[in-house]
């Protein structure tokens, strides 16, 4: 199941684990990224907490945790090469995997059509 937030995160949900990244639209708006900071595996976040930071030459932006949960894995590849977020934001450049506290809460997020309408 693919879901989106109004803050431009995407979630690919398989069982009670969501793989989270930022959308192609967001990556395009941010421009070339030069730095990514990811959370520690094992950290717990509430929905809306700042879970990661991305920085372009010009500015820093927070990436929010889209649902309550615990980080179980992070993608070191985007820390080593932040430009991956610009080249493949909705594929290889995922940010973290989140074990959802309540998988049913995902139903309230946007589906792909609703997100596309938001950024159109």
């Amino acid at each position: 199941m693919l879901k989106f937030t109004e803050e431009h995160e995407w979630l690919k949900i398989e069982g009670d684990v969501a793989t989270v990244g930022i959308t192609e639209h967001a990556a395009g708006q941010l421009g070339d990224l030069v730095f990514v900071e990811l959370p520690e595996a094992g950290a717990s976040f509430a929905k809306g907490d700042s879970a990661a930071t991305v920085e372009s030459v010009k500015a820093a932006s927070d990436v929010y945790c889209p649902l309550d949960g615990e980080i179980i894995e992070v993608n070191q590849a985007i820390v080593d090469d932040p430009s991956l977020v610009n080249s493949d934001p909705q594929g290889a450049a995922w940010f973290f995997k989140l074990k959802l506290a309540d998988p049913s809460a995902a139903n309230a997020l946007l589906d792909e059509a609703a997100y596309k309408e938001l950024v159109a």
Partner: protein
Amino acid sequence: MRQTWRPDLEDISHLKHTPLHALHLSLGARMVPFAGYDMPVQYPEGVLKEHLHTRAAAGVFDVSHMGQIIVRPKSGRIEDAALALEKLVPVDILGLAEGRQRYGLFTNDEGGILDDLMITNRGDHLFLVVNAACKDADFEHLKRGLGDTCDVKMLDDRALVALQGPRAEAVLCELWADVASMRFMDVAEADLHDVTCIISRSGYTGEDGFEISIPVTSAVDVTQRLLEHPDVMPIGLGARDSLRLEAGLCLYGNDIDADTTPVEAALEWAIQKSRRSGGDRAGGFPGAERILAEFANGAKRRRVGLKPEGRAPVRGGAKVYADAEGNVAVGTVTSGGFGPSVDGPVAMGYVDAAQAGNGTKLYAEVRGKYLPLTVTALPFVKQTYKR
């Protein structure tokens, strides 16, 4: 994600346009509000490529939002305008030769900096370029200070375009061959595309380059001629900021303001010997007492380069500490970001004089962590001015 890049919540209807506004839109620029103007922050290539292209070839910048002011002596004698302006700036204007430009500062009675500016001797008048956000206040300040002896006029019929980078001379040569004879800080009048322009060999990137004052009616024509050259790319405010930061140049409002003095800001070089204690025309500018005392005794704090050790940018506003636990506050970052040519983070800021020596290890607070950084000589990249 926080939508830091979307200005659409702001009312942009009040923003002014430069004469090149439509050209920016046609080039696909992303526009942002800056100093009351709707300005290009980047073009489709993006900040990173624009920055690197300027250092490798040449970039064109619209800086028409800046103020262009003429100070003309009522007596007809340029010396009278020079001496009058010296009452507002701690700079040697009398010794500024015709066709030469100099960096200057308006100071206040407390020794703080009201604005920084470029001053040119144009033979029968002085030509000033001031910051966009300060230009109305500067104009009033000049009229109050010099109105008795000089006519002060803000030019609203000229655009200002910067051409910067190692290929700038070759590009401009195709429009005006004599440009090769100009040295850093020379100013000349020239016909470009049958339009009389004022060209200075200066800029805000640390690179060789030019700033070209163009009559509004021809601004688009001349700029398009520059952009047609295969070595030239349009450059937005984003790369303008990263270029000047790597070059160690101050941004008014960030690195210098009414609460910072020239000595604190490490701008002693902008105050020539004739205006310092013991000079022919020592003092006689606002805040002279404090500024000259700081020349003699040093200032309590100092603007320095700060090189973060890791990859994380340290932005303006970050607090700086002497220790990794954040117990001993010693200063603040005033400008910081990622330097594409340095290929790493760069910053500058103010620290206590005792911590200002090159090589001093300090720590900046970023998102609750204390990141190590080192006090480093500015600039971060070698300046390539043609002296």
